[in-house]
């Protein structure tokens, strides 16, 4: 287990905090760690900042994310990793598509030729708007902020052929929506998947999709890879190993 001294904790929004620390790990965008909440649980978390200073942006769902989100200066973050295959960075114009905290791992991809879409259920879910210099569409289910609608609502307002690469991160259902929208267009895209993870090192099979492990073969998959994966957006295993449908 590694540990990192917490330098700062930034409140990003309702139940979303960014934990700041410094480590020697070399992280590439899209990689993640297994963060240990001792005595509670261990959860996968991606990086929202990846220089010598590192940031992790956590949305509180349960006990473990709550524990990590509340780490403050002077505390230690215990973790293993970094794990996973990162995003492939291509030159040219990029579109980042994040649902809620799904935007966090995309932040390290931002350069001066980047455009964004952030979606959320409601205004409270929208974070990291500040990084986009207005080159951004916001869309909420309830229309409380930005456009009213879903991620496709925002996609439809853009000419996707302008982009050399789409990068998407969020719940699998949202990713499937994006995928379905673009699959018959000639568009390059990479998707960072989230499935339940127990081991993070490709042994336990809980995160698998069509025989590939999201923790080691992913979390980033290209649109070509996903075209061969009929589990994508359709079925997955629960924690117990029971197959469920999305």
């Amino acid at each position, binding site marked *: *287990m590694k*540990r990192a001294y917490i330098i700062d904790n930034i409140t990003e929004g309702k139940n979303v905090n960014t934990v700041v620390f410094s480590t020697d790990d070399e992280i590439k965008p899209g990689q993640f760690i*297994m963060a*240990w909440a*001792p*005595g*509670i*649980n*261990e*959860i996968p978390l991606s990086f929202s900042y990846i220089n010598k200073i590192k940031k992790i942006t956590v949305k509180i769902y349960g006990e473990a994310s709550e524990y990590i989100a509340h780490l403050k200066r002077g505390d*230690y973050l*215990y973790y*293993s990793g970094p794990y996973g295959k990162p995003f492939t960075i291509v030159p040219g114009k990029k579109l980042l598509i994040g649902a809620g905290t799904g935007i966090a791992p995309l932040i390290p991809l931002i350069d001066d030729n980047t455009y964004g879409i952030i979606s959320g259920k409601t205004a409270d879910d929208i974070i990291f708007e500040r990084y986009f210099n207005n080159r951004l569409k916001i869309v909420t289910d309830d229309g409380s902020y930005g456009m009213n609608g879903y991620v496709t609502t925002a996609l439809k307002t853009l000419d996707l052929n302008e982009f050399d690469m789409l990068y998407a991160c969020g719940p699998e259902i949202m990713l499937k929506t994006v995928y379905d929208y673009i699959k018959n267009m000639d568009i390059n895209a990479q998707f960072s998947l989230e499935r339940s*993870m*127990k*081991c*993070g*090192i*490709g*042994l*336990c*099979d*809980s995160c*698998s*999709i*069509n*025989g*590939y*492990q999201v923790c*080691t073969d992913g979390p980033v998959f290209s649109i070509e890879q996903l075209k061969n994966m009929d*589990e994508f957006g359709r079925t997955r*295993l*629960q*924690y*117990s*190993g*029971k*197959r469920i449908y999305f």
Partner: protein
Amino acid sequence: MKVNTDIGIKLKNPFMLASGILDENGYTMERILNNGASSTVTKSIGMEERRGFDPPVIYHDENYIINAVGLSNPGIDNFEEEIKIALRSGKPVIGSIFGRDAEEFSLLARKMESYSVSAIELNLSCPHVKGYGMEVGSDPDLVSEIVSEVKSKVSIPVFSKLSPNTSDIVEEAKAAEKSDALVLINTIKAMKIDIYARKPVLSNVYGGLSGASIKPVGIRYVYEIKKELNKKIIGVGGIENINDAIEYIMAGASAVQIGSAVYKYGIGIFNKLNNDLNEFFIKNNINDIEDIIGVALK
């Protein structure tokens, strides 16, 4: 050159996927079977769906893994679908099961048989879940009752996987003598403490040790049991490369299972082992795997 082997069922090569590693999801099993494994043992399946322990369920180091997955599994009824998917590979699937008593084991075995598995592996040895596995395995009367019961209820071969956490494995193996083959070894009870957090790492505190560190213990059990009982043996524990596999085979194993090494080398390890086995046979003038099974005992 003959590398196919017979453990009650016929295998194209001696390399099997061990229970509990990437064998809960049918698609994953299918993929591994399509990539060099001659067969897969499923994750151990019980009567009911079980969530298992909370993470951390695994601690790993360069030379070992300690796991306490806690027999998480979807329950036998939900598992048919996974086996169906795995069987699309055309390769044999072996159903691993765990239960509390002979009745549960037989029921599970019959269901597995009805799902078209080629053999049953009885997990008599999981070291970290109370009331299962190790506790079952260290009671020779119970072991022999379970094996007899299951044997009488199914017509496919039955393997018994034994625990190394015992003072007398020969006695344990004798109790399981009616099995078609013995699977040696399961993990060794172990644990990890994080000295900065000052806490056990695994949520279950104790877990099972696997990987390179346990190979010398596995070799010893295979050799000792082969010598005492001369039964078919499937070797497992710390196999990372062809030399490790050959060592198990020479100790008496007719086939071997690969578990933890998949973490270090990925599923490509199966194709690599097959290639390296061929090369080893050629370089050392071996024509038939039978010629080296148990050769160290001679």
